[in-house]
């Protein structure tokens, strides 16, 4: 029925179960030999796109990732979950450090136009930097409407109904396509990439391009000065009465 096409952006991050350690030179966290996987919110985004395809509302799902060669593993997972083909925007390791939301948004915006998609799906934020900016910036650069923190998505012809989780509760928006949607936790439960599907995904194509091919400038005006561990949490102190509590709080200068 629909000839809609969707672009899903996925990010390769350190696995959520890993204990993060800061590098001794404080320039960042240890990534060598550490387990990486697809950002959980990106998985939810891929799942939603694939479900729309299974409902025959979307014709093609394209998975894209920006970064060094290992990103292809993440794209392959998206393909195993049901995406049709992948695009790897290759950014060598050294430059990848400076890849922030603005740079990625520029890439996604150019790709969305080039591939003529109607929907761009992303996870609401990445669990390594917690920026929560890429989706919004992409929509801004494209001048498309955006539905962020989506907990439910329904396609209605040439419009998309997005239920959003906001501080006050749930807000429902109706957006004209094309639009950008970012996925929140309760949107869906992503499927496992089964081993037979992983094998089938091997036959799907991943196109490798450079940011320069899209005419995107990756320079960043942000530089990381240092990365440190949060201060150690000290043990609390139990007090017997309210008077003691007030006295203690005064003692540490809180009141």
């Amino acid at each position, binding site marked *: 029925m629909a000839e809609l096409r969707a672009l899903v952006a996925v990010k390769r991050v350190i696995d959520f*179960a890993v204990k993060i350690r800061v590098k001794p030179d404080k320039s960042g966290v240890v990534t060598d030999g550490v387990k990486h996987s697809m950002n959980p919110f990106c998985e939810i985004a891929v799942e939603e796109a694939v479900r729309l395809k299974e409902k025959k509302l979307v014709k093609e799902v394209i998975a894209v990732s920006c970064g060094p060669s290992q990103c292809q593993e993440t794209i392959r997972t998206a393909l195993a979950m049901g995406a049709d083909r992948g695009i790897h925007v290759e950014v060598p390791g050294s430059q990848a450090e400076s890849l922030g939301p603005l740079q990625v948004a520029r890439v996604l915006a150019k790709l969305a136009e080039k591939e003529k998609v109607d929907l761009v799906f992303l996870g609401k934020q990445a669990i390594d930097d917690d920026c929560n900016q890429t989706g919004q910036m992409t929509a801004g650069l494209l001048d498309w409407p955006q539905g962020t923190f989506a907990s439910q998505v329904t396609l209605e012809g040439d419009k998309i109904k997005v239920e959003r989780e906001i501080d006050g509760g749930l807000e429902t928006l109706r957006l004209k396509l094309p639009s950008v949607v970012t996925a929140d936790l309760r949107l869906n439960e992503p499927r496992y990439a089964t081993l037979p599907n992983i094998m089938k995904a091997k036959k799907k194509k991943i196109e490798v391009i450079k940011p320069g091919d899209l005419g995107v400038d990756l320079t960043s005006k942000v530089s990381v000065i240092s990365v440190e561990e949060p201060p150690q949490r000290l043990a609390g102190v139990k007090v017997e009465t309210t008077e003691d509590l007030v006295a203690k709080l005064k003692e540490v200068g809180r009141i």
Partner: protein
Amino acid sequence: MSGGGLVSRAAAAVAAATTAVRASQVPRVFAVTHRPLHTSLQSRSFAKELFLGNIKQKGVFPFPEISQDELSEINQFVGPVERFFTEEVDSRKIDQEGKIPVDTLEKLKSLGLFGIQVPEEYGGLGLSNTMYARLGEIISLDGSITVTLAAHQAIGLKGIILVGNEEQKAKYLPKLASGEHIAAFCLTEPASGSDAASIQTRATLSEDKKYFVLNGSKVWITNGGLASIFTVFAKTEVVDSDGSIKDKITAFIVERDFGGVTNGKPEEKLGIRGSNTCEVHFENTRVPVENVLGEVGGGFKVAMNILNSGRFSMGSAVAGMLKKLIELTAEYACTRKQFNRNLSEFGLIQEKFALMAQKAYVMESMTYLTAGMLDQPGFPDCSIEAAMVKVFSSEAAWQCVSEALQILGGSGYMKDYPYERFLRDSRILLIFEGTNEILRLFIALTGLQHAGRILTARIKDFKRGDVTTVMETIGRKLRDSLGRTVDLGLSGNLGVVHPSLGDSANKLEENVYYFGRTVETLLLRFGKTIVEEQLVLKRVANILINLYGMTAVLSRASRSIRTGLPNHDHEILLANMFCVEAYFQNLFSLSQLDKFAPENMDDHIKKVSQQILEKRAYICAHPLDRTS
């Protein structure tokens, strides 16, 4: 120093040796034993060559590698499987309830884990042995699931892949790969466990020769209650080449739908309680002749090939479990304080971690070395290597899980923690898939048989005056008498082992050389009767297992250093540690094998056990007793 004198002395030594040999000719050991233990083509496998004091480097050095593509493929597979097992498998519940929940089984099927080695054209994943071993590391997080999957694919349906014809493969494999049908392996009977050739289940050919009628009972069958396809072994009457009628074993593919197939109630087990183990009875079950697996009368070989092909994967499964245990116990040891210090600061606790890490390292190395050999083209015979992996890893599992539990102390004993379940689940490893006792005999005898054959041929050549053999023998005896240092090409500038492991490589070479010499001596001393000398055979097997372990770690560590893998310094420590320990163990075993060795208590052992078993009780007088 006159060169002539030296040569004539050597010649005299050789002449003396020849006379001795001629006197008690190295016999053709096991020309035909009552129950032949070898089942595949005689090929020069690595382990067999060790019996001749040779280290066959091909396929072993350098450590087998897989392509980058295969590696990224395996890593892709590992992710979802690991996630499934950590998030959705409740091992405690499976153990308590004694079964695997239906939707866990369904998810395992959809993940594709029921057809890992079934070829792609029949709907499976068609993965290599190496990949299968890698997945085994994760699946072993739950013992019951491991055994259920292994019984289904490593033995239950393996026969169809190995010896099935096209029709059988096309008919049965697709539904087995998807998990729609589950398979079971039916060999063991109440009166036939280790002595598999003595089974009594019978299959009689019908009058019209179109089907067999199957009757008998099988016991301890994993998946017996779940399976719809059974690989069954039964005795059939076969007309031998000389015209006489003999009873030989035939393998059959039996469908539950053929009728007459019933199973008993699930057995209550010590461990792997989630797996289904029960009796399976066949009463006048009609099996079409098309369902004969392999050849009529060739069933024993089929059974041995099936068992040999899956055995090596126990190593990676246990390694996976040990790595998990190290994580769990390390967490505890580094946070629990006694005497105002963390447990991790105490030597006796540290020793346990070193043990677990070392065993895991050796096990991994042996498994992936064996898997790499098995994945070579052709049909390499790695049955001894696989058996060694099984024996080593099952015993290391039992030992290490016990130590891990010990680290937790009292808590380790409580059901609140998983250690007691790991302990109970691992006890079976020493029993099934061939008891370690039988496998030790198999390892020793197969190698001795190979050595015996080669040595007999060499003696013949020597006596015929074959120049090469004569020169080799003289040369060897000369070097031995001059106290040679053994050099089998492992160490030194041209060696395949990295220099930082040079010392261990020397120890391995020395052990291998003296092992080869000892094998000759044993064959000379015992001849055919060596089949009965189980205590001797046990030592031979133990030495061999150590040698294989040493080879595996040296090969792997050399590769890690040369490739520059992270933490290769730690690997050097582990490799050297194991090699030193194994070296001295081997020296002790080798000295025990000496005929008049004081360390050899075999006669005592035999006498003691005879006296006990005669009275079927402990016979010593009580220490408090008096005479009147």
